[in-house]
């Protein structure tokens, strides 16, 4: 061996030999698998609830992309391909658990009952964040990679203090981030804090294989879930296109966190089927073979195959869900188009709780200017 510099990108072979450590409860072909650590039985209603949310979430996402293409949104960050990871994680949450999302967590948002219109509003540019995190148990979307992961740990530090004071029941925190964000200092500091303090946080890393054009292998040569051990807590890799496995693994980790057994890093192995955002052009950096490979692992098709084969639902159910999706899409589209533009003078009001003279003056001056301007136009 000798010291070298790279001359080509490392080849990406999606058809790698099966990773024995990958937790799966549904095979790619939709057969039910079993795993010693994650025994789980699913009722018909649970399976149907998963399926329904997978389809609705995909439809919300498609509507986001469509609205952007039609000029109604400035941007959209599609979750296409990651529905199972998010719906699985979302269903695993207890009502009192708190989520700290990135900008792509539309699926978890949906399960946490955040109106998709509010997500669209952010991407439309009418507001930076339109829901109440405390009310929804779901933080505002976070764009600066990794920053929210520290917030999650801090929030968890608050949870354990509340519990110690007898002011709350134990709960857990889900900290979301992508494969690329694992390279940020903040994510690693969050691991340090949570590891040292055994904080009730579940680190939920959706490894969708890409950070814009940067493949995961450029961030790490070892599987990302390995990162956890060195910070003193367990890591596990789950098939993120398997809603049942993701649900089971996240639920288990959340329960541990609630019991005071400390954090877990979950790497949900999945794939970003769409572009990074609607501004992105993935044909510049990845080949269609890879895409085909992953499309064949579609998370919805897999669950449906299983449900059909095992008789958990019939055509009527699937049709009903599709109809519901159509209605949802129509509703959120209308809701998005009806979103009022914000009041420019209101922008001065939410900077501080206690407003300052300075901002009052700037606001008044601008109000005056707008008035004068309107007069002039008139």
């Amino acid at each position, binding site marked *: 061996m000798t010291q070298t510099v790279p001359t080509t990108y490392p080849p990406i072979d999606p058809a790698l030999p099966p990773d024995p450590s990958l937790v799966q409860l549904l095979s790619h072909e939709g057969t039910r698998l079993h795993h010693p650590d994650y025994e789980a039985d699913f009722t018909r209603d649970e399976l149907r609830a998963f399926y329904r949310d997978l389809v609705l979430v995909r439809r919300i996402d498609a509507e986001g992309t469509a609205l952007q293409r039609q000029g109604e949104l400035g941007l959209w960050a599609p979750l296409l391909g990651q529905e199972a990871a998010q719906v699985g994680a979302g269903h695993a949450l207890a009502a009192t658990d708190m989520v700290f999302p990135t900008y792509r967590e539309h699926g978890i948002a949906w399960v946490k009952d955040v109106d998709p219109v509010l997500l669209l509003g952010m991407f439309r540019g009418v*507001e*930076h*964040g*339109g829901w*109440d*995190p*405390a009310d929804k148990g779901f*933080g*505002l979307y976070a764009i*600066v990679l990794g*920053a929210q*992961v*520290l*917030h*999650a*740990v*801090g*929030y*968890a*530090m*608050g*949870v354990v*203090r*509340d519990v*110690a*004071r007898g002011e709350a029941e134990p709960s857990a925190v889900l900290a979301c981030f992508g494969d690329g964000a694992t390279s940020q*200092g*903040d994510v690693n*500091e*969050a691991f*340090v*804090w949570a590891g*040292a303090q055994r904080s009730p946080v579940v680190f939920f890393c959706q490894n969708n294989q890409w950070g814009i054009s940067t493949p995961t292998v450029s961030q790490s040569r070892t599987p990302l879930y390995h990162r956890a051990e060195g910070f003193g807590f367990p890591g596990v890799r789950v098939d993120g296109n398997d809603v049942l496995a993701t649900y089971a693994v996240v639920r288990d980790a959340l329960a541990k966190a609630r019991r005071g057994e400390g954090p877990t890093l979950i790497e949900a192995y999945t794939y970003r089927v769409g572009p990074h955002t609607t501004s992105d052009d993935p044909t510049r950096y990845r080949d269609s073979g890879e895409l085909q490979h992953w499309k064949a692992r579609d998370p919805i098709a897999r669950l449906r195959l299983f449900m059909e084969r095992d008789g958990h639902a019939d055509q009527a159910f699937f049709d009903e869900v599709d109809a519901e999706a159509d209605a949802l899409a129509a509703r959120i589209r209308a809701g998005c188009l009806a979103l009022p533009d914000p009041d420019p003078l209101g922008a001065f*009001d*939410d*900077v*501080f*709780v*206690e407003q*300052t*003279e*300075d*901002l009052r003056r700037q606001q008044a001056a601008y109000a005056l200017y707008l008035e004068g301007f309107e007069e002039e136009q008139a």
Partner: protein
Amino acid sequence: MTATLDTPTEVKTLPMAKALNEGLRAAMKNDDKVLLLGEDIGRLGGVFRVTDGLQAEFGLDRVVDTPLGESGIVGTAIGLAMRGYRPVCEIQFDGFVYPAFDQIVSQLAKLHNRSKGRVRMPVVIRIPYGGGIGAVEHHSESPESYFVHTAGLKVVSCASAADAYVMIQQAIASDDPVVFFEPKRRYWDKGPLTDVSETLWQARVVKPGTDLTLLAYGPMVRTCVEAAAASEHSLEVVDLRSLSPLDMSTIFASVRKTGRCVVVHEAGATLGMGAELSARLSEELFYEMEAPVLRVTGFDIPYPPARIEEHHLPGLDRVLEAVDRSLAF
């Protein structure tokens, strides 16, 4: 929320560091949601002993010796605030606040705004700052401009024991994030804990005068008071106390009266506080000013080695020289 301030019944005289300590203690007693986070603030009581004894009194869950990462300290403080706590972070020295910069300017400063007022960030970031203690590199910085320029933050600095005691409690009671600059070379200056009638956002005329206004804050207030005492002219010294927002009515009133102004700070001239004050004064008092606002500041160089720091730091003589220049207009 406004905390009831614990004002002492008889007037104690304390060094500023101890006054801060008492102020923190009072705030923690008043509100059990107040937590302290920082490096070495627990058993050690902080490298300047500002948190001395607080962990013993309030427990490890309220006075937290964190891992060594400033982004982690501020980032987790934000999360704690979301959960209803009022964290007070200690940055060990001025020069170590930069790793937390993103958390401060992109998160802490913006979350209330991002959430349209739904999320509050009652977080205080305490920063011992400034030079004059003979320290090695990174221990004598004056980074206040970075935070004053950042929309969404409030920034204050205390210059006396009495203010230290009261202002830290007011900062903790604030529902907005406050960067709290402590002039470390004045930590050992003693003063009586007299009543403070100002709000946290008000400036104070600490020495009245008629010929010229000296605007200062933090470590330079004492320097300016000494300069005023040494000067043959009648100099008015205003302690800004709040750097963001600026209490312009007090400042305008003083300069309207004197017609002349010298701003003094340790931070570099370029985009130091003097720049903003100069701009606002000329915008507002263009016809009243008899001389341009002059600035006596650290040079626009990285903080120099300790053996020449007294050249870099504005001292009495440099202040008086600027006073003369102003009066010569």
